[in-house]
């Protein structure tokens, strides 16, 4: 009962886009598909949809090859945002719904309900070209889910949305998941992925470098992050000299220490207290998804525009102030 990406290989000329990529997405899961630009995410989605064919390997949904599945199994939100510019929003949604086999009156009802849900009911009769980019994106999302597909593939669904719309979209994700739909999305926003996904796959250069339940991945990495705050100097120089510390970052709220797998938190706390520092926060956390991503894919260089910057993430707390 799942989507299986079974050792899929795809070449474009001399470029190997996918190299025996293999992972599995459980039915009813929200799944994050992560990787730098050019890692092969879009290619994988297109192979799932049957738009392009793999050179080797196969994609199966519930045991059936995608070639045998009807198109309406899938909903697809492409990364390139585009609608028919001169066509009205509602007409457009009914059009896409009809192509997926929805009767026009039902497509119309569903579309109106979705537009209301995304707080753009007044735009139903506007031409697509009159809408802002963010609103066009919401219309595109509706076009992808209108026919209630079993699997929803989304390429960068969050880019370009303001915080309010981001919340609306996340809520929609959760509701679709609760209805048993399977959601797979690629994103560079680690925060969103962390908040939504139970499982992720991290790909790099067409190969899977990490995959599985997020919780398991975090545990397996053995890395932890220690957040500290002091009265006085927020970032004392001696922090880097403490035992078991890999890296030290200064944040607005205090210091953030990346711990080596061998580090012993109580010993670190003892060492800090021995320095006479007034500790106001001692928070031991599992590594953020961003840290995991960087661990597997590598840190983007400063001039690399392909990775969107993301903020440090407050994650599940594994410890408290000692």
């Amino acid at each position, binding site marked *: 009962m799942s989507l299986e990406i079974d050792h899929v290989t795809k070449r*474009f*000329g001399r470029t190997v886009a996918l190299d025996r990529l293999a992972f599995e997405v459980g039915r009813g899961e929200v799944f994050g598909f992560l990787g730098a630009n050019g890692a092969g995410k879009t290619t994988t989605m297109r192979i799932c*949809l*049957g*738009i*392009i*064919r793999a050179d080797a390997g196969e994609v199966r949904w519930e045991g059936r*090859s995608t*070639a*045998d*599945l*009807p*198109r309406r199994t*899938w*909903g*697809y939100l*492409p*990364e*390139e*945002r*585009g*609608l*028919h510019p*001169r*066509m009205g929003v509602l007409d457009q949604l009914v*059009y*896409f719904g*009809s*192509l*997926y086999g929805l009767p026009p009156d039902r497509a119309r009802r569903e579309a109106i309900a979705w537009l209301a849900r995304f707080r753009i009911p007044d735009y139903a009769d506007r031409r697509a070209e009159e809408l802002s980019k963010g609103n066009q994106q919401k219309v*595109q999302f509706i*076009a*992808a889910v209108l026919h209630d597909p079993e699997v929803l593939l989304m390429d960068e669904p969050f880019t370009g949305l303001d915080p309010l719309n981001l919340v609306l979209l996340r809520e929609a994700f959760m509701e679709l998941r609760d209805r048993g739909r399977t959601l797979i999305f690629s994103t560079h926003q680690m925060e969103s992925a962390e908040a939504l996904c139970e499982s992720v796959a991290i790909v790099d250069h067409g190969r899977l470098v990490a995959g599985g339940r997020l919780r398991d991945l975090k545990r397996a990495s053995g890395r932890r992050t220690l957040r500290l705050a002091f009265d006085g100097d927020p970032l004392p120089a001696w922090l880097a000299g403490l035992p078991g510390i890999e890296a030290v970052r200064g944040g607005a709220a205090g210091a953030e220490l990346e711990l080596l797998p061998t580090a012993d938190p109580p010993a670190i706390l003892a060492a800090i207290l021995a320095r006479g520092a007034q500790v106001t926060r001692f928070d031991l956390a599992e590594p953020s998804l961003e840290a995991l991503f960087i661990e597997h894919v590598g840190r983007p260089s400063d001039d690399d525009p392909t990775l969107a910057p993301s903020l440090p993430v407050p994650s599940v707390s594994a410890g408290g102030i000692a």
Partner: protein
Amino acid sequence: MARRDPLLPNAGIVARREYRDRTRSRMFVGSTVVLALLAMLVAIGPIAARYLDRQTVTRIAVVAADTELAKSAVSVADALLNVPPVGAAEGTWKKPYQVEVADDAAAAEARLARGGLGGIMVLQRLPDGQVDIALRTTEGPNSARSQILSVAAFGIGVLDWSARLPPDASREIFRPPAYRVESINTATDAGTPLDSRQAASRYLLGIVFVILLLISIVIYGMWVATGVAAEKSSRVMELMISAASPRQMLAGKVVGIGSAGLTQYLAIAIPALVLLGLQDRIATAVLGPDWIAGAPLGGLSPALLLGYGVFFLLGFTLFALIYAAMGSFVSRPDDLQTLSLPLSLVAMVGYLIAIVALGGGSGTLVRLASLVPPFSPFVMLARLMVSAVQPWEILLSVGLLVAAIAVVAVVATRMYAAGVLLYGQRPGLRAFVAAARRA
């Protein structure tokens, strides 16, 4: 591909959207109205021309030292140039040509230079008795007026010669011979050959039909090509390719845009045809009964209209598919301009052969081109209008056309699918051909 890929209903849904998208735009409505008005103007153009011509009388001056010779020249030219149309009332009909003896040769020359004369016939008797005639005119030697006056010159010579023969009471008076053309390659209507007026009407209609076909193919074919290329390079393609197969999208586009083109075509052609059909009545009302020059639609029959419809639709479909394939091949709509030229030239060749066929040409080239696509829609249309065509020729022509459409449809779909597969890339020809084979 294992996935079932039925054309309907998606091709129909795509076609309906394409059709509405085009026909509902203000540009479409505006240009259709303007073009329809222009076509109606053209349709009543001949009446307007004749209305203006009604006032005009062409004057021909005859200059000769020999008064008798000048008089006989005037009477022969007058008889040849001023033939009243059939059914003209004697009281109201006016002669379009006025032929008179000019007393002063220099004054006549001056009038000719000013444009006051259509021509001057200068007659001289040579020492051996032969009559020498020079037509001084602003027109060329092949103009209709020059040629009919050359016949007049011959008539003047014959009359002059017979007048100088010794009188002979037993001789019969001169009667001009009856003359008509019997062409064995003339189109027939229900078995009877067409009369000259019907034939003239068919010739005219043939030219109109062939030109209309050429224009529709070039203009609306380009619509199809642009529509295909534009969507292929537009970002909405990403949403479309997961919703419909390339086959469905291409079929929908060709049918939808083609129908939009045909809608405009009919909106332009029907009012103009109605006006043409009424031309005689309008002419009678405006110009009086003497100006009837024959009904322009007189040669038309339901069978011919049907033939026109069939060859027009098949020809249009064939070219629309070729244009669609072209649209699939280019990666940017700008490249279409370059690629469309050779295709327009192919259509133009068909058009030119059709014009030869309309002029009565029935050589091997014409007969062959009337059977072989993509020229057959033009040339067979022309042959149907003006000459006798065997039933098997029509059947063969239609059959070959349908077969060509099927082949081009398959090729165009593959090219379109390849264009979709290589979406976002700028493929070389080799990559494109490889993708088209896999598609």
